[in-house]
């Protein structure tokens, strides 16, 4: 019996080692962030959102581009809570800094680097990922190949900085060496009792690929500065065939 327990212990340690080698930290820093993505946690290796890794987000359309930025901003607000600074690299930025406050970020704590070419954006991101004084690095670019993404992954393995690679309007959706691939789509917001107006931003979050995890689709709403999981998505989508309520506007 004793031997068996010892073996189990060894296997557990080995598994953790393998995870660490694959780019998932198992140190204390991985548990200090609570992203409020509770039902999703089971999908992640080790049960927490992998920090200190590069995540890829794909947004083929303008609407998903904006939604993805919203979702990333929500994640950033948790990462930056401890007075962090974030670098936002972009080859085609449209982000309006003021609005970041809505997502719980002090916009003046973000340093924007606007470059013309994707190559420059990659160079800046790689340099930034090596700087462990940053809380996170976001890069928005259109083209990246596998080798380039590997360099980014190697950079974070030493520094433990979290990187968000936002692949917008991609020319092709190639495989990258990132730990995950996400797709965020906007969903119609919920208004209470048919009141006029627009509700809280709501997204369909698809974790398309996650190394050592379980991909899946969830729905989240950004309400009062935190993510809120939506359990009954049906309510938000009006059933086809039913006549729509007449709208009244304020």
């Amino acid at each position: 019996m004793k031997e068996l327990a010892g073996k189990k212990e060894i296997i557990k340690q080995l598994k953790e080692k393998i995870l660490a080698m694959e780019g998932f930290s198992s140190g204390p820093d991985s548990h200090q962030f609570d992203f409020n993505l509770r039902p999703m946690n089971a999908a992640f290796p080790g049960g927490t959102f992998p920090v200190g890794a590069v995540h890829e987000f794909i947004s083929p359309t303008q609407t998903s581009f904006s939604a993805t930025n919203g979702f990333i901003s929500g994640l950033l607000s948790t990462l930056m809570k401890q007075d962090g600074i974030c670098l936002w690299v972009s080859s085609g930025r449209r982000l309006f800094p003021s609005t970041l406050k809505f997502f719980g970020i002090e916009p003046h704590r973000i340093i924007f680097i606007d470059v013309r070419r994707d190559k420059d954006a990659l160079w800046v991101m790689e340099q930034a990922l090596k700087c462990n004084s940053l809380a996170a690095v976001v890069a928005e670019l259109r083209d990246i190949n596998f080798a380039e993404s590997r360099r980014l992954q190697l950079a974070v393995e030493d520094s433990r900085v979290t990187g968000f690679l936002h692949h917008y309007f991609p020319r092709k959706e190639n495989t990258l060496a990132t730990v995950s691939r996400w797709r965020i789509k906007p969903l119609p917001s919920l208004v209470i009792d048919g009141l006029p107006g627009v509700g809280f931003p709501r997204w369909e979050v698809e974790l398309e690929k996650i190394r050592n995890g379980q991909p899946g689709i969830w729905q989240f709403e950004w309400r009062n500065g935190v993510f809120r999981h939506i359990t009954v998505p049906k309510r938000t989508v009006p059933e086809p065939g039913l006549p729509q309520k007449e709208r009244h506007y304020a």
Partner: protein
Amino acid sequence: MPKRYLSIWFRHLATDRMVRLHPELRDKPFLLYAPEHGRMVVRASSRALDREGIAPGMVVADVRAILPSVEVFPDDPVTTDKLLKDLAEWFLRYTPVPAIDPPDGLMLDITGCTHLWGGELSYLKSIVIRLRKGGYDVKAAIADTIGAAWAIARFGKNGTIVEPGRQAEALRSLPPSALRLETTILQRLEKLGFRQIGQLSRIPRTNLRRRFGDVLLTRLGQALGTEPELLNPVQPPPLYQEWLPALEPIRTAKGIEIALQRLLDTLCERFFNEGKGMRTGTFKGYRVDGKVEQISIGTNRASRNAVHLFKLFELKIPEIEPALGIELFVLEATLVEEVSETQEALWSMGNSDHAAIAELLDNIAGKVGMKSIHRYLPLEHHWPEASIKEVSSLVEEPETTWRTDRPRPLHLLPHPEPIEVMVALPDYPPLHFRYKGNLIKVAKADGPERIEQEWWLQTGPPRDYYYVEDENGARYWLFRLGTYGNGEPRWFLHGFFA
């Protein structure tokens, strides 16, 4: 350190320039003239005319009478002045403080420079030989004071070096015109029989002042070193500059790196002692063929970290073209700022070390340019485009809070894009609109939020903003420019919500 000055007198500056341009004029009698009171007056004469006793100030017609073969050209004082300035800049390789001494001389502050050439004599020789080779007829002298060097260069033997403290003896036998005085004073001195400066020293100062005014005493004092005189250098001396003359011309990148490293080490040590740091710096290489190669860097925050600064310069070293070799390296901090401990505290970054971030940003600025780095602070304006301002500093904190009371899109288009809309009633949000060829049906809407133009900044119709959501959940920010009943209002898409 006692000062030493070198005065250079170009005896035929303007005509030497003509000879350089037209070599066939060499050894020919020619002069440059300019009109004065309706007559043509000689401004400069060639070396060949010296023998004929022709000097500037004579009338051209008289000269023609003495020497019919003389050629005449109009004088061009502007170009000559420029030549003198260029020559002064060329002398930067001999001293950091060359100055123009109009109309035809240069004054160099050579304090502490001559040992690099192995003493004052070889320093002077090197200068005179190089100028002679360039075709300039020069006389030069070294002395303790500007006045004495000036006097001896013009009235003494060419190449005189006055030993420190001996200028009074050297000046004794020179005429009073060596004191840089006005003609009226010189004429009065002449009338009273003062032929040598030495004679003046026997007269009590009060008498001299009564007869000739303060100017004479000042000039005398300046020549003897009892009165201070300031030089007006051609380039204001930068406060933070380090020099490294090379024993042999440097041609390799490695050599340049070593020179840069050494200069940075000395400069950064100085910064540490004075509590300062570099914001912008220039590294120059003076080439054997007279050209200057230079690279410049800028930092986000005053830095005195030699390793970091070296990294910034290193990116640009390939831009230096050494050609035949670089004989002098100069590192100059053109913008220097205080580095204070409080500056580091302003970010209040808790756990993060923001010096590392500043260095990262310097690296980025070196690669993609300073213009690509942006940081924003809130401004108290409702007009969306005016509600943020860009700051160049990393430490500036917002004076007002970021507002969240009104919905603002996460993506704001740099320019609002016109859309076609279908509106049921005035002041209602559109039922649907067409953007980039797609028909978008509005399912939910919020608004309007009227934002008026800020009349003290710009005038025009107000904007009525609507926050709308389509059937698929995409959220847009639209506005109507103008109102119904006041002409046809136009609609624009201005942003996308998350």
